[in-house]
């Protein structure tokens, strides 16, 4: 289960060493923006060795450089052999961007004797074109398990200011959720970039959750606990979900067709929501 995803600069030996102990459900080891162009070679070798030798227990996602850069192929050549759970392609603007990367990974998987399709994708959508093509991207390839909104680059592309209120990314957030759910994949929200503002973080995460996001990313380890809390079902929600199923069972035993709980009719969407809550609670109990 992924509620939180924490970014780590790929060339920081110290941060990669501690990455598994900071509480996030997934770790994003970054070869892109957090790494200077002169250190791309160094970061990809360090990240490869860390995944291979440090015995990470959490989900490992590697963020690679965009397809219009000179780095992405070397990133994949170096990283795919150590089998990360997912690759995060960057600046994905259309389904073809995903296809290029998926086909390249397939070639590497074949060479390495891995089953084709082993490594999954979580495209980072951070351009206006990408947001407009979000559904096509989300449904472009069986490797795509989720899509991810990058708010900072997106607002630069939109030529507007990134604010704490986030009105400028409201449309993008809604569109991303709609696209992901229509394609049957998960969807993750952009990080909250003010490291010290926890109140703002919680509000922002709660808002993202209310729109339908699966979870949220972070650039600060201090944000992880708050994000996990916001995206976990509460005790009350879990109890309500259990009551929904208990009520249905009881009604079945009594031969009743229509049932209600706490004055509200239990219909299909309520049952679906209850099942999701129990599934999330179960996943939290079992770790990954």
């Amino acid at each position, binding site marked *: 289960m992924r509620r939180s995803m924490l970014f780590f600069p790929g060339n920081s030996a*110290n941060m990669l060493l501690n990455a598994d102990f900071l509480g996030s459900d997934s770790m994003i080891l970054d070869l892109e923006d957090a790494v200077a162009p002169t250190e791309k*070679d160094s970061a990809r*070798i360090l990240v490869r060795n*860390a995944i291979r030798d440090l015995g990470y227990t959490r989900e490992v996602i590697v963020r690679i450089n965009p397809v219009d850069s000179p780095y992405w192929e070397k990133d994949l050549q170096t990283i795919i052999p150590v089998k990360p759970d997912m690759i995060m392609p960057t600046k994905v603007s259309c389904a073809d961007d995903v296809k290029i990367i998926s086909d390249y990974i397939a070639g590497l998987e074949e060479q390495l004797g891995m089953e084709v399709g082993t490594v999954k994708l979580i495209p980072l959508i951070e351009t206006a074109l990408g947001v407009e093509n979000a559904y096509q991207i989300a449904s472009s390839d069986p490797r795509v398990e989720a899509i991810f909104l990058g708010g900072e680059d997106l607002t630069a592309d939109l030529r507007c200011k990134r604010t704490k209120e986030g009105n400028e990314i409201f449309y993008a957030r809604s569109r991303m959720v709609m696209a992901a759910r229509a394609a049957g994949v998960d969807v993750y929200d952009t990080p909250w970039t003010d490291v010290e503002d926890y109140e703002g973080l919680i509000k922002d995460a709660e808002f993202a959750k209310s729109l339908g996001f699966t979870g949220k990313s972070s650039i600060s380890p201090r944000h992880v606990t708050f994000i996990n809390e916001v995206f976990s079902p509460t005790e009350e929600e879990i109890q309500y979900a259990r009551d929904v199923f208990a009520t249905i069972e009881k009604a079945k035993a009594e031969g009743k067709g229509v049932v209600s709980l706490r004055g509200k009719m239990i219909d299909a969407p309520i049952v679906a929501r209850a099942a999701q809550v129990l599934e999330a609670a179960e996943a939290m109990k079992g770790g990954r």
Partner: protein
Amino acid sequence: MKEKAWAGTMESSDIYVEVEPLATGSGIDLTVNSVVYAQFGDAIEKTIMETLESLAIDDMKVVANDRGAVDCTIKARVETAVRRLKEEA
């Protein structure tokens, strides 16, 4: 091949490695400076030597300034420095 190359940083848990080519038959000239040399000096030297061997390097001057790096970091920095020297990066 370049005259000199380096990789890594002087940050905690990292190691800064400098490499220079040596004439054939010179062997490996290795110097390790480490904050934990008394405890781990031999192990660091062994890891560096094994990494050089895996990269088929027989003759090279290597100076490593260690800040408490674990094995996979030492291996990564040595490999990067050697690849940079050979301009394979």
